């Protein structure tokens, strides 16, 4: 019984990290049908931003988080407006090639600026230590990630479903030309959505830094992981990404508890089965 609870607790905590990192990619993939393999670079940028601001400049963690997220969002939006939007109509393989090249470039840049060493983020006292759940303890940081993930999912769903911007997004996804014909500023929607996706990735990078420490190779190392969550969850589906992340996170955690000699075999088998069962996304028929 404790084992089951342990699996659930750790699995959900891990899954939340995956969700926050991947949800931005799901949005951009679903919205703009643009394969952006450099998504991990935004996660890295957000993480490094906070690491540097807190570590080298002694800023307050929360202030640094806010600054880093805004900066990452702006960086993402700028990248989209200046470079990536020219590639929307290109074939998928060209998008793949370009964004891989971009990722290599950003990895090399991070290496040149920050050096090859792994960086960790020093957490504020409010996030250090553990929370006693009764049958076990859970690091406070994990609880924070859980809450942040849920908040992010709720906020995104609310924006998409209830705000005007959300309407614009949904219209642009369904039919970009008709939407622009109706006066919806497509370019602005795409740019802002991309920026938001980048900022979310940055948040994921910070939240996940306890598990996935920052290093220049970060975007390439965790690329497959993010793609898996997006694929299983369905492109553009926020509840799908959440569900996929939680399920896959729990499967991986269960595997570590029960049959860790099999490595990540169960994870990929689960992924394959889920994809085969629901190719369009775990919550879509």
């Amino acid at each position: 019984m404790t084992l089951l609870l342990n699996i659930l607790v750790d699995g959900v905590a891990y899954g939340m990290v995956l969700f926050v990192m991947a949800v931005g990619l799901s949005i951009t993939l679903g919205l703009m049908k643009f394969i952006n393999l450099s998504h991990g670079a935004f996660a890295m940028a957000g993480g490094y931003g906070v690491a540097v601001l807190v570590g080298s400049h002694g800023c307050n963690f929360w202030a640094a988080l806010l600054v880093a997220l805004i900066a990452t969002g702006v960086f993402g939006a700028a990248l989209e407006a200046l470079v990536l939007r020219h590639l929307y109509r290109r074939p998928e393989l060209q998008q793949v090639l370009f964004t891989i090249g971009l990722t290599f470039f950003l990895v090399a840049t991070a290496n040149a600026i920050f050096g090859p060493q792994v960086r960790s983020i020093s957490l504020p006292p409010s996030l250090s230590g553990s929370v006693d759940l009764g049958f076990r303890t859970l690091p406070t940081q994990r609880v924070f990630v859980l809450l942040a993930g849920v908040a992010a999912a709720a906020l995104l769903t609310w924006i998409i479903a209830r705000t005007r911007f959300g309407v614009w997004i949904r219209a642009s996804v369904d039919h970009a030309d008709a939407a622009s014909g109706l006066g919806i500023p497509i370019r602005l929607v795409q740019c802002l959505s991309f920026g938001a996706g980048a900022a979310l990735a940055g948040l994921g990078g910070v939240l996940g830094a306890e598990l996935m420490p920052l290093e220049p190779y970060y975007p390439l190392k965790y690329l497959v992981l993010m793609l898996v969550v997006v694929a299983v969850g369905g492109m553009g589906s926020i509840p799908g990404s959440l569900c996929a992340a939680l399920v896959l996170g729990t499967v991986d955690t269960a595997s570590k508890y029960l049959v860790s000699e099999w490595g990540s075999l169960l994870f990929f088998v689960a992924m394959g089965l889920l994809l085969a069962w629901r190719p369009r996304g775990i919550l879509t028929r």
Partner: protein
Amino acid sequence: MTTTAQAPAATEITRPRARAMPPPWRLPLATIAAAIVASLLWPDQLGLVSRVASTALLVLSLDLLVGYAGIATLGQAALFGVGAYGAGLFAQQVHGDPLLGLLVAAAAGACLAAASGAFLLRFEGFTLLMLTIAFAQILLSLASTFRGLTGGDDGLSDFTVSPILGLWEFDLEGRVGAIYAVAVLAAGLYLSRRVANSPFGLSIRGIHESRARMAALGTPVRQRLIGIYALSGMLAGVAGAVTAQINGIVGLDSLGFPLSAEALVMLVLGGAGNLSGSVIGASVFTLLHHTAASIDPYHWLFVIGIALMAVVLFPPAALAQKAWDRVRGTRKAAP
């Protein structure tokens, strides 16, 4: 009625061209000639020639899928790795003859591809891409777990490969290895060109352009796709075997995602859909990596990253076409 002549969409690099089919001997001979020139220019770096040749064979196998059949996959390393481990285990357990090893690897690659293709090819697009990744990762996990058989991450190295046909031993300078790899590549290119020019190959191109139409014509689409997937698996397996035999060791990196991704990058770099692109892409990428890494290993990623982005933003095909037109002095004038 006036029509405005439009320049062909130079951005569609994966679109197979429906024009006169090149004779099957041209590309293999050109490749052999290029290899001979390279070997004469750089006689101390024949190991590099072998590496380029076996990589080109892998990229060629990918071209059949991506360029001709329109199946995007990031799991080609699974087939390469199966061929590599197959050849290595064959040399270790059964017989050290390299040509027999090639046959074993070819069979292994083809069978695995056919079996997995039967499942994977039910899907399309992004889903298929992700499933191929999953498949390769599952194989990687299995190879890593069964380290008694595969050597795990230490690699499979307890095997010796006998001299080819009992005469030519794999030497230190890599001469025999280079000739071997280039010969196998040339054979692979010939075979691929013959297949591409055949009615089967044409039907594959048709399936790429429109599955619905081909199905309407009565073509057994899934069968054909599994067929090309098996052929591709065979070539990838052979590429793996050549690498294993020349190097005398098979590592887990043969099944890894970076290998699949690099092969795809090389293919797109060289141009998919016409077979020569695989050789060009493999050569350019490997040589670029090798040179940049020798000059400054820390920052070679800058070079590659910028090169890749440049190739996409300013496609060589379009630029060359423009330059060619200007040289010829022809302009497409709107009547």
